[in-house]
């Protein structure tokens, strides 16, 4: 089938998602909950794009291509919504994300600076560094679900669980027992996929703590 993205047309196989088609053309849109190693999830709404004939912006990661579809990755409404969504995500963090993180990169791409429009309640710092390699920084969790899915879909350890709702949504290892006392096999797939360093490596945390311009 044929889809047109930003005036370029490409032939794609059935079940190709809009995001995959965008990538196939060498393009990109911001994403937070997307990881090519995992099944599409559609939680973060950072990948919204305009689709001709649609009532509003659509998520590129979970929408399958339809023959003759026309996509606008620069759609003004989609951009406005995405910027607001990411700004709201950032507003819940007690500090800006480390410069190397995907969240920081998305914020830069959307032109979101330090001055947020909707300052409000932010998460309280809560760290767990009991594991020799893996650290949890709960206040940085944006509930994208990537760590939980990496644990389930890539490693199959089922050690991580999404907890809480709304503002309290977070992730937990082994029902708060920590990585070591869960079914965790220390593969690190969660830290590898985390877009905010809510789960990261102890060694990287130590580097960030001593590097100017990087914050944890």
């Amino acid at each position: 089938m044929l889809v047109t993205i930003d005036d370029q047309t490409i032939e794609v196989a059935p079940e190709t998602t809009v995001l995959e088609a965008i990538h196939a053309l060498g393009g990109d849109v911001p994403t937070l909950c997307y990881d090519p190693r995992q099944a599409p999830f559609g939680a973060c709404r950072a990948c919204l794009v305009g689709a001709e004939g649609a009532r509003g912006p659509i998520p590129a990661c979970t929408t399958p291509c339809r023959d003759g579809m026309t996509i606008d990755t620069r759609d003004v409404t989609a951009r406005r919504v995405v910027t607001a969504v990411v700004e709201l995500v950032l507003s819940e963090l007690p500090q800006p994300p480390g410069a190397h993180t995907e969240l920081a990169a998305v914020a830069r791409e959307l032109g979101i600076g330090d001055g947020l429009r909707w300052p409000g309640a932010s998460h309280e710092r809560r760290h767990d560094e009991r594991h020799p390699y893996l650290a949890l920084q709960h206040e940085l969790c944006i509930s994208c679900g990537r760590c939980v899915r990496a644990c389930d879909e890539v490693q199959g350890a089922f050690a991580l669980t999404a907890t809480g709702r709304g503002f309290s949504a977070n992730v937990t290892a082994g029902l708060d027992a920590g990585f070591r006392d869960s079914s965790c096999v220390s593969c690190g797939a969660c830290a590898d996929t985390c877009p905010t360093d809510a789960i990261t490596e102890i060694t990287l945390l130590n580097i960030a703590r001593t590097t100017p311009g990087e914050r944890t």
Partner: protein
Amino acid sequence: MSDRFDSTVTTTCGYCGVGCRLEAHVRDGRIASISPALDGPANAGHTCLKGRFAHQFSRSRERLTAPLIRESGGFRIATWEEAVHRISTELNRIKHDHGPDAIAGLASSRATNEDCYAMSRLMRAAIGTNNLDNCSRVCHSPTSFALRKAFGLSGATGSFADIDAADAAIIIGANPSHGHPVVGARIKQATLRGLQLVTIDPRRIELADYGVLHLSPRPGTNAAVMLGLGHVVARDGLVDEEFIERRTEGYDEAEALMALYTPEHVEEITGVPGRDIEAAAHIYGEAGDASILWGLGVTEHKYGSEVVRLICNLAMMSGKVGRPGSALLPLRGQNNVQGSSDMGALPDTYTAYRPVSDELVARSFEERWGVPLSREKGYTIPQMFHAAVDGRLKAMYIFGEDVAQTDPNTTHVVAALESLEFLVCQDIFETETTKYADVILPASAFLEKSGTFTNAERRMQLVAPAIEPPGGAKTDLEIIMTISRALGHEMGYATSAAVMDEIAALTPTFAGVSHERIGRRGLQWPVAPDGTDSPILYADEFELPRGKGQFAALPYMAPGDAADEEFPLVLVTGRRLEHYNAGTMTRRTGNLELLDRDWLEIHPDDAARLWITDGQTVSVRSRVGRIETEARVTERIEPGHVFTAFHFPEVRTNLLIGSSADVNTSCPEYKVVAVDVRPVAEQPAFTPALAQPALS
């Protein structure tokens, strides 16, 4: 991006045979972090706790950073010049007095193909002997032997991708979740998508919980299980007659033998219920595509090589070989155990398993290396130790292998090392083995050198240096070339890529291989001159005369050791997720915090009978040795069997292993050892009924 790292280098993991491609991130000359390469063909953006985290060993304070020379009962730091001079003087003296065959070498299955090839040249050309082996002798030599006999080539018939394409799979004698974690995870995901998995192992391995059927045969009875599966496949009309007729030879004899192995008979031998044998045969036989994976639980037996032949039988009679989803995948143990053998670090073969007696092949190497080469087979590892004890072998050059901790019959190994007049060890740490060395050379870890590793899919992948060898340590290729030069044989390779160019020029199987072509995706041998590689072997014919696969009519034979009144339990040894073989690397990382000891798994029935409680220190005694370790009571192991790993020198599990070995390849029988287990501290007055808490 960020300035957290000074550089990032894509390389290939130096732990197991999966061959994960890794991104090594460097800061201040040290590895800061490792992440999986998203385009790694074997790992697809995933890796395990060894590949990702266990890299701190590379900057351990215990790394060897200068040559050491034995002097007045200890070792002293020496210069490279002194060490090289000492080695060349001693080796020349021994060669002069006793001939080149009084010297033997071991290549390292953790080193690169280029290192192993250079080691082969050092032994064959610079010293003049075929006394060269590598540690595949003690792991998958039976696989190599049997695959060559049955199909023609010594390697997996397919790729890990076949796991995703299969409808069913059998895993026998392997625990991939621990030994090959990334493949283990891949299998687990496949089962969650509907792969019908049958696990066969004396232990109820983790993947058994995701499979449809688990068989627990008595250790050493795999042959009977495979014969029983073949029996049912033949009896119930699940054979692929067209495949047998067109592509194989010897089926009738094999079938006649399998006819004797009824499920009832197999149950008597193995303890596996006959109905489970029937169910497993139907799952495999009825699947559209099915693969068989195996590990050292198949090979490290007296008849290990014969069981691999029987695995090949089952695949051929079912027509399940040579196409996507239907593969035979031996899970090779170390990162480059496939490659070290492919490169000819063996006593009887040059590159690609071509015999040293083959006149044409030998001449091609003579021409290239400019020296006459021996046509006589050299010693295998066990033969080296026998020859050392007998006084025929005077010197050894051991490169990257801790034989005193990992080889069986430790007493004999130590006696052999002590008998030598001269021992060179080339390693990254002092080990049990280096204790007996005369010269120790400080070598490089995989993160510090360039070359290639070949994974369990026959995939040659690039290894690139992320950091420098520490202190005065040097890369293995440089060390081997230096020693060779001192012995009067200049190898003259400018780079590891030049070594590979020579390998390609002299070896049809690797004709189209170059570092440039290997690139980021790797090449699965055989590689044609134009660079076309081979993800799947035997699609049309086998690599044997007439192109026909060979059935083998081999009966079940009892293992070399068996439980008796004095030694009533059977010990199986294996590995745990957190550590890697002798633990030389992983014990020097945070993995030690995750797992800091070995233990003995014992069934609750046996524990109760022997008055052993969970966590108690027990004595484990075999016919040849005794160790002490902690008991853990678990139902994952069958009654009558016990299990432990061998990662810790404090325990030295291999003291228990005798000299029984595979009949064809002398691979030791690590997997069947009769033992007596009892609590170390017996209470002077005790009865279980009154003990609190009660033993249940």
